[in-house]
């Protein structure tokens, strides 16, 4: 897993691959067709990128950013004013 921890899986079915979405979907449908409730870790993507990764936010929490880091200041504003004259 991304933080170095490990999952030890002992598969009870050789026709199921927990890293394959296709296999997981098939396994799920097979269980349903047989009237069973499939349990356990059905699918995992170990390379998962979360929302923060996708939108490229800074690694520091946004709620910890100071005014100095957030407020561009009057000089930048005057430059924007100039663009609108």
């Amino acid at each position, binding site marked *: 897993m991304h*933080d170095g921890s*490990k*999952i030890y899986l002992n598969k009870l079915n050789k026709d199921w691959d927990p890293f394959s979405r296709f296999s997981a*979907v098939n396994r799920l449908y097979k*269980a349903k067709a047989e009237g069973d409730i499939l349990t356990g870790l059905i699918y995992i993507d170990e390379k998962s990128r979360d929302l923060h990764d996708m939108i490229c936010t800074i*690694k520091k929490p946004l709620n910890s950013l100071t005014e100095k880091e957030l407020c561009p200041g009057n000089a930048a504003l005057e430059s924007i004013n100039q663009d609108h004259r």
Partner: protein
Amino acid sequence: MTYIKPKFHHPELPTNRLGYTKKEYEGVISTLCAGCGHDSISAAIVQSCFEMNIEPHKVAKMSGIGCSSKTPAYFLSNSHGFNSVHGRMPSVATGANLANCDLLYLGVSGDGDSASIGMGQLVHAIRRNLNITYIVMNNGCYGLTKGQDSATADAGSINKTGIANEFNAIDLCGLALELGATFVARSFSGDKSQLIPLIKAAMSHKGFALIDVVSPCVTFNNNTGSTKSYDYVREHMEAVGTFDYAPYEKKSQLIMTAK
């Protein structure tokens, strides 16, 4: 029955690496029905957090409305909690996560909250791969409002009223797989040996980790004919595999560096 928890505890209660006993991970006494599956899940959450050496105040407990959404009061008293409006927990959790990526987000919801009014928000939280452990306490009915069938009730399943549900069930795991979810699991409130490692793995996962936990409602949906009763689930459960979780040993692990 008393609702006051004793403050005294055995002096030799085991402690985790933070020096906390399990008591530091508990909440107030449950006011759910005796035998409710949700209480077992709460206990599994307490156990998982204790064993994972998580700092309780670094967890944010997010829930919606329903019996399931009451459970965050029953674990992690030192964590902030947010009971949002019905079905809208994923959006609040998204905003909270955007504000602080360093907390651990634990979303607790039910099948009414997630598979009906909350269906849209659940779908998009999965789509965005929000970093959250999302546990659905799934009993096939609306316990808090006296037992109506929910959208996860199987076609043909009979609840306490004796009337069979006509409509197809929403399979949250099937839906999650289809939506590209990166961690999909199902468990049963009566099987802690499976549930606890799943919760731990979900909390370590970077992204949306869905655990659909069948959690029988002893009051409204535990009768013969229900496909979400204790008896039915025990008879029809099929595990994909046995499963064990081992946390990363080094101190640089995410949960150990929480401030």
